[in-house]
């Protein structure tokens, strides 16, 4: 590994959370406008994180509780290593899509472990709900992943991106898959109607209930990175990874990068609009919802891809 790689990794680790926090700040502004109010400044999220890290006393329950948020943030950042960012990619190999799926679950487990160690019943219920929700949206999502992998005949995300640049964007080639993937994305983002794990009126923010101060700051960073990871996974799978301009020139690379940011934000923006006008399902309804239409549509999409690719 060369120095440039290390610099790139550190740069990514700094840049991605900042970008995610910016998205969250803009999200608060947009939600506020839908709610007929002005809302906080777009940089509010940076101030919040800064304040959280400056808090003094923290209450710890056990070392598992302490390590949970760190585990989650590191896990998410590791996932980010494998994800192409509009032409930039730090690590890539065959089958990295499966590793990504695996790592995303791992980082969620970090929070589950830490929250479980807090001993608060609300955390326990929140974690349980998060696991049920994960199980619900993973099924259609894995089916969709299969269909995309089959269509492009590869398990490498980078290759999927490059093949989309040659052919057409997958959103045009596989519109049904894209729709189902977007429904799953809503659950991955944890936006309403699928925010049961942190539902304040029900379980008082669930897993986060005992976390305060620096821990909460870590969780906020985790959420910020997760938005980018999940959003760009969709962008890479269906929107050609944002590669629009010729990546051989520096200007093209920079523009591609900007397009990638824009597309990730677009996906987040759509989730946000749904979030603003929908109440949340009960967890059993969410489960039933995901295993009904999205799963059926995902199977249809898979069959369609099988038929198309066997031609």
């Amino acid at each position, binding site marked *: 590994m060369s120095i440039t790689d290390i610099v790139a990794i550190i740069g990514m680790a700094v840049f991605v959370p900042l970008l995610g926090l910016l998205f969250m700040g803009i999200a608060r502004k947009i939600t506020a406008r*839908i*709610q007929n109010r002005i809302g906080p400044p777009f940089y509010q999220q940076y101030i919040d994180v800064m304040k959280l890290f400056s808090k003094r006393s923290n209450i710890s329950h056990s070392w598992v509780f302490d390590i949970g948020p760190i585990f989650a943030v590191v896990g998410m950042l590791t996932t980010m290593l494998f994800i192409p960012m509009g032409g930039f990619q730090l690590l890539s190999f065959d089958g990295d899509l499966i590793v990504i799926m695996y790592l995303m679950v791992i980082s969620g487990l970090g929070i589950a472990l830490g929250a479980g160690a807090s001993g608060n019943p609300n955390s326990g219920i929140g974690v349980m709900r998060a696991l049920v929700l994960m199980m619900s949206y993973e099924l259609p999502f894995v089916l969709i992943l299969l269909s995309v992998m089959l269509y492009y005949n590869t398990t490498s995300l980078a290759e999927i991106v490059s093949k989309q640049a040659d052919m057409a964007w997958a959103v045009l080639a596989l519109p049904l898959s894209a729709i189902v993937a977007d429904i799953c994305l809503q659950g991955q983002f944890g936006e309403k109607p699928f925010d049961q794990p942190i539902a304040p009126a029900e379980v008082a923010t669930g897993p986060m209930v005992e976390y305060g101060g620096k821990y909460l700051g870590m969780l906020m960073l985790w959420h910020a990175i997760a938005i980018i990871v999940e959003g760009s996974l969709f962008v890479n799978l269906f929107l050609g990874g944002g590669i629009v301009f010729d990546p051989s020139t520096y200007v093209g690379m920079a523009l591609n990068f900007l397009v990638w940011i824009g597309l990730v934000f677009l996906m987040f923006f759509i989730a946000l609009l749904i979030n603003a006008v929908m109440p949340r399902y009960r967890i059993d309804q969410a489960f039933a919802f995901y295993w009904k239409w999205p799963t059926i549509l995902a199977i249809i999409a898979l069959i369609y891809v099988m038929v198309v690719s066997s031609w």
Partner: protein
Amino acid sequence: MSQTKTIDLFFGPQHPGITGNFSVRVTVDGDTVVKAQVIPGFLHRGFEKLMEMRHWIQGPALICRICVPDPDHSETGYATAVERLAGIEVPERGRYIRSLMLEMSRLSAYLFYFGGYAGSIGLYTVGQWGVGDRDYILDLFEELTGARVYHIFNFPGGPRWDTPPGFEDKVDKLMDFLEKRLKEFDKLYFNNRVFIKRARGTAPMTKAYAQKMEVTGPNARATGWAIDVRKDDPYAAYPDLDFDIITQKEGDNYARVIQRRMEFEQSIDLIRQITRKLRKMPRGNVRVTPNPLHWKIPPGEAYGAVESSKGELGYYVVSDGGIGPYRMQARGPSISHGVQVYEEMVVGQRVADVAALMFSLDVCPPDIDR
């Protein structure tokens, strides 16, 4: 696994899923509630004791605080009871102004209610809109009474002052605005498929159960039981106003929310009727003013009730001939649907619906605690 472990969850007093400073201890088996215990008393101030040490006229200054989102009904209930005890007849214009205030207060309480239930199922936009729109009503209250929340306006004998010039027009304009706004609420909230899926069939209350447990107000009407203190024991200007009792059938969370939404429309209509009458009436005579410092009421007892936004809110007043009540007791609507009914209805519900049920029943904790 036949023997499952139950956990105790505390909803409140510091919890967003609670309608105020109130607490519910639910025992949960898996995701289902098996037992619930209501813990009130965080808002107890002993109004009944305090009133024994106050003059008759000082009552409204104190007991408007009994139900905070809906203070005018508290004032008017007390005023009605004292008027009945003292045999005072309020001038006609005074009665109409009183009704106008009560309906405006009902609107503001229902806007709170919409936001509350929507917030409990995660649709915060409704709360943001609703409470924001409620503030326009408060602006009008301020113009009429000189205060935003605690108006201290409906004294025994009539409302304190006449309406300021041009007030009726402003009210009508606001009603137009609220009607327009209600259409937007319909689109966002009442016709929202996810809301309907969440609310319909959850925690249904039958008419027989409502009758057995003395449930009053919109909760009872949502079960199809046509009761309304405005009709049954008329006060203020309601005998002269034209309205019907609205009912729903199912008595579940959905029916309770829709019941309020329908009554919201009805209140707008009532306010329009009142302003039309107020414009025709001669101004000036609104209040029969007894001497505030030496007002004595002959011994006796009386009960005055109003249909507040939560149900029957009544005051039992006893006089021994002194300058203040010998005893005053309030009957808050939540004492029936907030304690026993809630404890029984929440059993068998999901954890997710503990808060939703509380918001849909519109439990007002200060009613219980007083």
